[in-house]
C-alpha cells in the first residue's frame, strides 16, 4: 500500500491523467515515459490501487508497430488487476498513437486507440471509431439467443424466407 501511494505521487508529478472507467472494477491509468520507465496512478473503485512498471523496451521505440507493442509493454505487473489502461503516446509510421487497453482477469479484452494524428497532423479522437474486426471474433454470436433480426430492409416477399420470419413463427 505504501509502494502504491509512492507511485501515485510519482504519477501525479508526471502529470498522468487518471481516467475513470465505467464498467471495470479497478481503473488504473499507466503512462510510460520516453526513457522506458513508467509510472502508474490508481483511481480505484473498490479500494485497490493498481500500478505498473513496464519493461524498458517498447513504448518509446516503436516504429513499425502500433497498438500491439505499446500495449504489451505498458501493461506490466498491473495487468493482473484488471481495468482500463492508457498507454503513452508513441510516434509510429502511422502518426502519433496512444492506446487504451482493457484487462479483465489478466486477459486483454479490448485495445482502443485513444488518439493519433492524421495525415494533416491534426490530433483526432478515435476512441469511438470503427476499427477492423475479424469475423472469427464474432462467430460466437451465431449461437446467441436473439429475439429479433436486424438487416437491410427486406421486401415482403423476401421476409417469407428470412430469419425474422422464422423467429416470428416461433413466437406464435
Amino acid at each position, binding site marked *: 500500500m505504501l509502494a502504491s501511494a509512492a507511485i501515485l505521487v510519482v504519477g501525479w508529478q508526471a502529470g498522468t491523467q487518471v481516467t475513470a472507467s465505467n464498467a471495470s472494477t479497478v481503473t488504473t491509468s499507466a503512462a510510460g515515459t520516453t526513457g522506458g520507465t513508467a509510472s502508474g496512478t490508481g483511481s480505484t473503485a473498490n479500494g485497490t490501487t493498481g500500478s505498473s512498471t513496464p519493461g524498458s523496451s517498447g513504448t518509446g521505440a516503436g516504429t513499425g508497430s502500433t497498438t500491439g507493442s505499446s500495449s504489451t509493454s505498458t501493461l506490466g505487473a498491473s495487468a493482473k488487476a484488471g481495468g482500463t489502461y492508457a498507454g503513452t503516446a508513441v510516434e509510429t509510421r502511422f502518426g502519433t498513437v496512444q492506446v487504451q487497453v482493457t484487462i479483465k482477469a489478466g486477459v486483454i479484452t479490448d485495445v482502443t486507440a485513444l488518439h493519433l494524428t492524421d495525415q494533416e497532423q491534426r490530433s483526432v479522437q478515435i476512441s469511438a471509431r470503427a476499427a477492423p474486426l475479424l469475423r472469427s471474433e464474432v462467430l460466437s454470436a451465431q449461437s446467441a439467443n436473439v429475439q*429479433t433480426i*436486424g*438487416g437491410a430492409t427486406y421486401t415482403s416477399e423476401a421476409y417469407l424466407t428470412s430469419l425474422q420470419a422464422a423467429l416470428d413463427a416461433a413466437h406464435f
Partner: protein
Amino acid sequence: MQPTSKPSEPGLGSAEPRLRSRTFTSMGTVVSLAIPAAPGTAPQASVEELEAATAVVEQLFKRLDRTFSLYRPDSEASALARGELALRDAAPDMRRLYVEASEWRTLTDGAFTAERPDGVVDLSGIVKAHAIREAGTSLLALGLKDWCLNAGGDVLVDGSPTPGSARPWLAGIIDPENRSTLLTAFPLGNAGKHALATSGTSERGHHIWSAGLQAAPNEGFRQVSVAAADIITADVLATAIMAGGAATLALATSHWDVDVLAVKNDGGLLATPGFRNLATAG
C-alpha cells in the same frame, strides 16, 4: 406453423424469455411486434394486448404510407413528385419530415439527403424510421413496457424480453453474404441505445444516393448497421454511411453516441466498441 430453421435452440434453459409476435405488411415490407408472454397472467390476456397494440401500429403505418408512398399515385408524396403540389401546401406531417430530413442533410455533410438527383423530394429514406418512431410513442402511450418492434430489419425496443429484469433485447445482425446466418448480435436497451437500423445493397438494390458525396469503390460498404438512442438517428446515419463511405463513418462515430458495424465490399468488418465488446464477451 413450424419454422424450418432458427438461430436459437428452443428450450435451452428456462431463463430464455417466451415471446409472442404478430406481423403485418406495410411499406413494402413486413412489420412485427413482439412482447413477452407474461408468465403470471392468463395466456389470453397477453395475446389480446399484443393484438390490440399491433392493430394500433398497423393503422399508423398504413396512414403514413398513404401520405408518403411514391408507389401510390394518389399519395401526397406522388403529387409533390409530379409537381402538382408545392411543399408549403403539403400536410404538416410532410413539411415537418422534410425539414427534419434537410437538417440531417446538413448534419451529415450531404451524405443523407431527401432530394433525388433529379430534384424530386423523396422522403422514403426517413419515412419508415418516422413510422417506427411514431409507433414506439403509441406503444408507450398504450402502457406497454416491454416490446420489440421490427420493421423490415429496423428495430426499436423498450424494456426487456424478461419483464422486470435488466436483460437487454438481443438483435442479431444479418450477414449480407449469407442471409440465413448472423454476423453478430447487439444488445438493445443497454447504454440507452434502443434502436438499430441497417442499410445495405443486398435486398432492395442500390437505392441510396447522396449530394455530391461519392465513396471510392475500395472504401465502400455493403451493409451498415447503426445502434442509437432513437430510430431516426440510427436509420439516417446507416443510410448516410452507406452513401458517404469511410468519411461519413468517421463523422458519425465522432459526432453521435452510436455504435456501428460496417461490412466492407471486400467482406471485412469495421466495428465500434459496442459491437467489439460483445464479440469479446462471447
